[in-house]
C-alpha cells in the first residue's frame, strides 16, 4: 500500500472493539484522512472527486425520479411531463438528472485527458487505467439507456439506430433478443429501465476498485516522478479535502447556471416530441458526449473487405477497445507531457481533434463545409462532414497506434527535476523545472 503501514490507533474501548472485528475506521483513516498524496497536484487532479460527486447526484436524483416515472411505452412520455409539471420540485429533479449526465461527461473527459497528459496510465497504473476505461464504457451505456426512457422521438430512433448497429455485427436474432420483440417497443423500454437502474451501482462498485487500485500504488503527479519521502506529500485530509470542497462548489455553480438558466442547452428539440415509430425525425443525433464515436461510425461510408455498416461498427468499437491497451502502446519512459515537448503538441491536437469529431458527430452527414462544385442533382459538393470525420478518425487512431509507440523511441525529453519537492521549490523561485544536477533544495517544513 502506497501509504505504508496503517497510522490508525483506536482512541477508546469502542473503536478498539470495532477495529478488531471490522476495521472500518482504520480503512477510512488510511484511505481518506491520512493518505499521503503528492503535494504538487493541480486542479486537473480534482476531477476524480468531482466525478464521485456527479455519481452520487445522479443516483440520488435517479432514485427520486424512479418514484414517479412509468417505464411503459404508453405512459413514459406523459409520466416525464407529469414529473415536470405536477410533482413537487419534479422539474428540478429532472433537469438536474438530465444535465447531470452532461456534466458527468464533461468531468470524465477532463479526467481522461489529464491521465493521457501526465502518463497516469503507465506502470504501475495500468490496471487503474483499465478500470477507468471500464467505468467510461459503463457510463456511455448508462447514458444511452437513460436517454431512451422518456420515449421521445430521439429516444425511440436513437434506440433503433444503436440496436440495429449491434444487429449488423451480431445478427438479427441477437437484435430481437435485445428488443424482446420485432422492433423497439414496450419490452425494450421496460428492460432498458431495469438496466439503467442497475448500471450506476456497477459503476459505483468499479469506482471502488478504481480508488483501491489508485491507493495501492499511490497518485501520479504533474512531474511524473514518484514521491521520495514525506517532504513530497501531504495527508489527504485536510489538504485535498479542502481543495475538493472548493472545486465541487465551483463545479456546482457551473452546473446550476445550466440547470436553472439553460436547462435544454445540451438537448435536442426532438426530445420533446412523443416517440412515433412511423415517423423518422429529420435529424437523428446522439447526445454530445457520444458524438465523437458516432462520427467515427459514420465516417466509414465505403466498403473494404467488409460491408461499410459492419466496418463502421468495428471502427467505433475499436476506438473504445484501443483505450484498453494504451499503457502498452506508449513506449516513453517519461510520464508527464510537461517534459515531452513533441508529445505535448500531439496531445493538444488530439484534444482539439476529439472536440471537432464530437461536433461532427452531431451534424447531418451531408453538410458541405467547403464547396468545390455542384453535384448532378444541383446540391453542393465538396469537403463535407464525412471527410472531416474521416480525417479525425485517422488522427484518433494514429495518436494511439502510431504516435504513442514511435514517440517514445525518438523523442528527446526535457530534463526531469530531482524530486517533487525540488520541482515545487523551483517553481516557487520563479524558474522552470530545476535540472537534476542542481544543489539539493532545503527541505520544506514537515
Amino acid at each position: 500500500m502506497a501509504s505504508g503501514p496503517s497510522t490508525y490507533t483506536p482512541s477508546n474501548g469502542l473503536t478498539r472493539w470495532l477495529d478488531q472485528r471490522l476495521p472500518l475506521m482504520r480503512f477510512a483513516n488510511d484511505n481518506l484522512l491520512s493518505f499521503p498524496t503528492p503535494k504538487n497536484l493541480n486542479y486537473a487532479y480534482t476531477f476524480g472527486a468531482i466525478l464521485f460527486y456527479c455519481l452520487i447526484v445522479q443516483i440520488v436524483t435517479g432514485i427520486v425520479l424512479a418514484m414517479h416515472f412509468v417505464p411503459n411505452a404508453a405512459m413514459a412520455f406523459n409520466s416525464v411531463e407529469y414529473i415536470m409539471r405536477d410533482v413537487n420540485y419534479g422539474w428540478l429533479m429532472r433537469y438536474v438528472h438530465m444535465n447531470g449526465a452532461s456534466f458527468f461527461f464533461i468531468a470524465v473527459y477532463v479526467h481522461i485527458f489529464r491521465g493521457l497528459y501526465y502518463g497516469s496510465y503507465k506502470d504501475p497504473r495500468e490496471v487503474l487505467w483499465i478500470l477507468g476505461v471500464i467505468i467510461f464504457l459503463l457510463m456511455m451505456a448508462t447514458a444511452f439507456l437513460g436517454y431512451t426512457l422518456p420515449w421521445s422521438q430521439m429516444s425511440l430512433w436513437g434506440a433503433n439506430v444503436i440496436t440495429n448497429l449491434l444487429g449488423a455485427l451480431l445478427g438479427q436474432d441477437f437484435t430481437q433478443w435485445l428488443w424482446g420483440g420485432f422492433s423497439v417497443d414496450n419490452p425494450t423500454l421496460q428492460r432498458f429501465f431495469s438496466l439503467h437502474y442497475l448500471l450506476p451501482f456497477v459503476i459505483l462498485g468499479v469506482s471502488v476498485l478504481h480508488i483501491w487500485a489508485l491507493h495501492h500504488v499511490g497518485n501520479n503527479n504533474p512531474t511524473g516522478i514518484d514521491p521520495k519521502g514525506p517532504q513530497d506529500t501531504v495527508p489527504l485530509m485536510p489538504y485535498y479535502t479542502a481543495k475538493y470542497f472548493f472545486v465541487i462548489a465551483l463545479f456546482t455553480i457551473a452546473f446550476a447556471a445550466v440547470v436553472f438558466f439553460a436547462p435544454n442547452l445540451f438537448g435536442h428539440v426532438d426530445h420533446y416530441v412523443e416517440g412515433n415509430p412511423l415517423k423518422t425525425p429529420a435529424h437523428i443525433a446522439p447526445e454530445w458526449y457520444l458524438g465523437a464515436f458516432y462520427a467515427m461510425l459514420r465516417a466509414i461510408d465505403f466498403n473494404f473487405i467488409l460491408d461499410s455498416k459492419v466496418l463502421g461498427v468495428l471502427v467505433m468499437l475499436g476506438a473504445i477497445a484501443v483505450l484498453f491497451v494504451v499503457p502498452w502502446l506508449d513506449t516513453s519512459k517519461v510520464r508527464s507531457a510537461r517534459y515531452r515537448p513533441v508529445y505535448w503538441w500531439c496531445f493538444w491536437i488530439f484534444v482539439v481533434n476529439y472536440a471537432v469529431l464530437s461536433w461532427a458527430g452531431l451534424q447531418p452527414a451531408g453538410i458541405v463545409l467547403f464547396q468545390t462544385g455542384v453535384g448532378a442533382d444541383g446540391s453542393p459538393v465538396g469537403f463535407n462532414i464525412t471527410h472531416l470525420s474521416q480525417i479525425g478518425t485517422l488522427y484518433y487512431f494514429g495518436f494511439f497506434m502510431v504516435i504513442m509507440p514511435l514517440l517514445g523511441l525518438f523523442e528527446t525529453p526535457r530534463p526531469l527535476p530531482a524530486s517533487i519537492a525540488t520541482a515545487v521549490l523551483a517553481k516557487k523561485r520563479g524558474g522552470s523545472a530545476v535540472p537534476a544536477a542542481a544543489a539539493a533544495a532545503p527541505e520544506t517544513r514537515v
Partner: protein
Amino acid sequence: MRKYLIAVSVAAVCLLPALAAGTAKHPEPVDFSFKGPFGTYDRNQLKRGYQVYKEACSACHSLKLVAFRNLADPGGPEFTEAEAKALAAAVEVPTLDEYGDPATRTATLADHFPMPFANELAAKAANNGAVPPDLSLIAKGREGGADYVHALIGLGYAAIPDEHTVVPDGTYYNPYMAGGIIAMPQPISDDQVDYAEEGIPQTVDQYGKDVAAFLMWAAEPKMEARKQLGMGVIIFLSFLSVLLYLSYRRVWRNVDH
C-alpha cells in the same frame, strides 16, 4: 505562445459557422418578456394568448398536458380560481352515462384540456390526412421555440412563394416550416379575436406573439420558479465558494506546492 495557439484553435472550432439546419427560414427573434435569466411571463399576454388558443386553435389542436387548474397557478396567466372554474365550465369533457354509454359533462379544474377529436384517425380524417399536433410542448419541441411559433403564425402566411416553389393542392406556403409547405391553412386573421384589453393591436402578428408566449408557458409552466430558485442558488454558491477558497488557502498556508 503554445497556450495561445491552443486557445485560438479551440475558439475557431467553436465558432465554426452555423450551418443551415434544413430548409426552414430562421425565425426573427421576438423580444419576449420571458427571455433571459431575469425574464418573466407577462400575465396579460398569457391571458390574451389563452384567448387566441381557445378561439382560433383549440378546434383542431389539443393541449392535453395542461389542466384548467394550471390557469390559476402562480407563474402563469394567473387567472383567479373563479375565472379558471368558469373557463373550465365552458368546456365539455367525455364521460360515461349511467348505462355505460359515452356522454359528456362540463369540465372541472382537475380536468386537462380536452381533445378536439376522439382519436388520431378521426383527427387525420378531418384534416386532409395531417394530424394537427398537440401544442403542449410545441415551444420546446421545435427549433426556434417561441420565435418559431410567432413567425409561423404571425408572419409566415403573408409570404409569397417564388415561382420555383410548387404548392400542392390542399397545402399552403409558409417559409418558416421545414420544406416551406404546411398542411394547416392560415389559422387566424386580423381582428378575429377581440381583446378586452385596451391598446393591443388585433393583428395577426400580435396574435402570433401572444399565442407563442402562451404556448411557451404551456411547455414550461415552472420557468419563473426555476429562474428565481436559480438566482438564489448561484448567489449562495458564490458566497460559499469564496469561503471554501479562503479555507483552502488557509489550510495550505504553510506548505510549498
